[in-house]
C-alpha cells in the first residue's frame, strides 16, 4: 500500500517524480523521498553469467562412448558409463586432475558400468584400450568407487573366457578351432586350476591365456600344435603375450599330471611333455580322477613316518605349515615353499624401554677422533679420483 503522508514533515502533498528510470514518490513540502521502486524489473542474463558446457567433460563422455562402441556393449552400459563419468568429473576428487587422469577415469567408468550390468570384462582389456599405467588405473578406479559409493560385483574368470575367445582371439583357418569347444575346454581347465590353488591371488589374464593355449593344443594334439610355443601361438592369434602365462602353463600341466597318473588305461608315465594328449580324458573324468589322486596321496602320506607329531620351539609353526603342504594333494606355493621366519632374539625378552644404557655400548656407535680423521681423508681421496 502506498503511504500518503510524508514521514519527515507529515504533509500529504506527494507527487510521482521519477529519477531517470527509477520511479520515486517525493514530498513537495520537504523534498524527502517517501518511497521508490526497483531499478529494473527482470534480472539481466548476459554472456558473462550463462555457463557453457565444459569441453573436457564432453570430450570425456565421447571417449567413454567410443570405448563402449569398440567393446560392442549394450546401450544401457553406454548410458550408465556416461552418467558415472559426469558425476565423477564434477566430484571434488576429479575436478582438478590432469587430462590424462580424466581419460583413465573414462575407462574406469566403462569398466564399472560393465561390471554392474554383468558384462564380463577385465581391467586388462581397459588397460589395452586406454594404454595407461596399470598402477594409475588401479588408483583412479579405487578412488572413483569410493567417491561415487559404488559396489561393483567381482567378475569370475570363467565368465570372461568366452568374451576373450570370441573378441580377442583371431586364429587363421589352419589353426582355427570351434569357439564353443575351445571355451568349454578352457573353462574346465580354469576350474581345475582354481581347485589346485593356481588361480587364487594371481592376475586373471595370464591364467586365461594359459588355459586357452592348452585347450587349443589338446583339442587337436598334432605334432605341429604340440611344438608351437606360447610365443608363436600369441603371434598366430594376434594377442599380446604375458610373461606369467608361461609359469601358469607349467603349474596347470603339473596339476594335470597329478590327475593323469590316475587314469587306469594309460600305461606310460604321464609327464608335462606328454600330458596334453590326455587333457580331454582328464577333464572328462576330472572328479573321479581327483578322488583317486587324493586317496593315493593320503595313502602315501600315512605310509611315511609322521615327523610333525612332537616338536616344540619357535620352528613349530613353520613345520606345521610345511606338513600341511605335504599332507594335501594341492597347496598354494607359499605353503609348499614356506619362508623361515627369523628366530626371535632371546636377550630381548624383558625389554621395558626404560633400561639403563651403558656408555661402553654407546661408544661402539661412535668413531674415535683418529677414525673420524681417516674417514674424512678417505672420502676426500675418493671424491678426487
Amino acid at each position: 500500500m502506498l503511504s500518503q503522508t510524508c514521514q519527515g514533515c507529515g504533509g500529504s502533498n506527494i507527487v510521482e517524480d521519477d529519477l531517470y528510470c527509477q520511479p520515486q514518490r517525493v514530498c513537495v513540502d520537504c523534498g524527502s523521498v517517501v518511497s521508490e521502486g526497483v531499478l529494473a524489473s527482470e534480472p539481466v542474463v548476459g554472456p558473462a553469467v550463462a555457463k557453457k558446457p565444459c569441453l573436457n567433460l564432453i570430450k570425456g563422455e565421447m571417449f567413454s562412448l567410443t570405448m563402449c562402441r569398440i567393446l560392442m556393449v549394450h546401450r544401457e552400459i553406454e548410458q550408465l558409463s556416461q552418467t558415472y563419468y559426469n558425476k565423477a568429473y564434477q566430484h571434488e576428487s576429479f575436478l582438478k586432475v590432469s587430462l590424462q587422469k580424466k581419460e583413465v577415469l573414462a575407462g574406469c567408468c566403462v569398466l564399472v558400468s560393465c561390471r554392474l550390468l554383468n558384462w564380463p570384462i577385465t581391467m586388462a582389456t581397459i588397460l589395452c584400450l586406454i594404454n595407461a599405467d596399470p598402477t594409475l588405473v588401479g588408483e583412479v578406479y579405487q578412488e572413483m568407487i569410493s567417491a561415487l559409493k559404488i559396489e561393483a560385483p567381482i567378475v569370475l574368470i570363467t565368465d570372461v573366457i568366452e568374451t576373450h575367445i570370441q573378441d580377442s582371439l583371431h586364429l587363421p583357418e589352419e589353426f582355427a578351432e570351434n569357439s564353443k569347444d575351445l571355451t568349454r575346454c578352457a573353462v574346465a581347465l580354469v576350474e581345475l586350476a582354481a581347485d589346485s590353488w593356481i588361480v587364487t591371488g594371481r592376475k586373471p589374464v595370464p591364467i586365461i591365456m594359459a588355459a586357452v593355449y592348452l585347450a587349443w593344443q589338446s583339442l587337436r594334439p598334432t605334432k605341429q600344435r604340440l611344438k608351437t610355443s606360447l610365443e608363436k601361438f600369441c603371434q598366430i592369434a594376434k594377442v599380446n603375450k604375458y610373461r606369467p602365462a608361461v609359469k601358469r602353463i607349467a603349474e596347470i600341466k603339473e596339476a594335470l599330471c597329478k590327475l593323469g597318473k590316475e587314469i587306469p588305461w594309460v600305461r606310460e608315465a604321464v609327464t608335462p611333455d606328454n600330458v596334453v594328449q590326455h587333457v580331454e580324458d582328464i577333464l572328462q573324468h576330472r572328479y573321479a580322477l581327483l578322488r583317486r589322486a587324493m586317496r593315493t596321496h593320503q595313502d602315501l602320506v600315512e605310509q611315511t613316518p609322521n615327523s610333525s607329531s612332537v616338536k616344540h620351539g619357535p620352528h613349530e609353526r613353520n613345520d606345521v605349515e610345511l606338513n600341511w603342504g605335504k599332507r594335501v594333494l594341492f597347496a598354494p606355493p607359499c605353503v609348499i615353499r614356506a619362508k623361515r621366519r627369523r628366530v626371535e632374539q632371546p636377550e630381548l625378552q624383558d625389554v621395558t624401554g626404560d633400561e639403563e644404557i651403558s656408555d661402553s655400548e654407546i661408544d661402539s656407535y661412535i668413531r674415535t677422533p683418529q677414525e673420524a680423521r681417516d674417514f674424512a681423508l678417505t672420502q676426500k681421496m675418493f671424491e678426487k679420483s
Partner: protein
Amino acid sequence: MCESPWSPCCTAHFLMDSSNEEALDIIVTNVVATFRTRCHLNLRTIALEGTNVIYKPEVGKVLMKLRKPKITASIWSSGKIICTGATSEDEAKLGARRLARCLQKLGFKVRFSAFRVVNVLAVCSMPFAVHLIDFTKNNRPIASYEPELHPAATYRIKTLKATIQVFSTGSVTVTGPNVQNVATAVEQVYPLLFECQKPLCK
C-alpha cells in the same frame, strides 16, 4: 610360550572362541615410532663421527642402524627422528633412547621428547583358508577385493584406524596405530573370516 597377553616377546594370543582351546598367534613384525631431540642436528658431523650411518644429502637425512635392538633410524637436521624395525613398542622406545644417547655423546644437546608409536604392523595366520569373494560380499563396503590389482581383500576398521589385508591362504596382515588396536582388530575380524572359510584339504 608367553604368559601375559602383551608380553615383550612380541606375540599376542587370543582364544578364538570359548570352545576352541587353541590360541591365534599375532606376530608383530614392525613398529614405527618418532621422537624429537629439541635441538638442531648437524648431519655431516653425525655422518663423520658415527658408525653404521648412511648419509643421504639429496634427501637431507642420515640413516643410522642400531644392532641391539635391530632398528633403523632416519635422522633429520630439524631434530625429528623416525625409528623403524622394532618388534615391540618397548623395544622401539629402548632403541629410540639408545639413539638419543648416541647423539648426546656426539656432542648435541639432545632432550628425548615426544616419543610416539606411529604404526604397528603385525601378521597372523588363520588355521583355515578364506573364500575372499564371499568375505567381500558379506562385508561390503568395509571390505574391498580387486583380484586384478592386489591378491588380498582389504578390510578397514575406521574406529580402530586399522587396516587388515586378508589373503586366500588364511594369512592376515594388520596395520594400526598401536599393538592394542591391532589385536582388537584381529579379534573383530576373526568371526567374519570364520564364516567364509574354505576347507584346506581339497
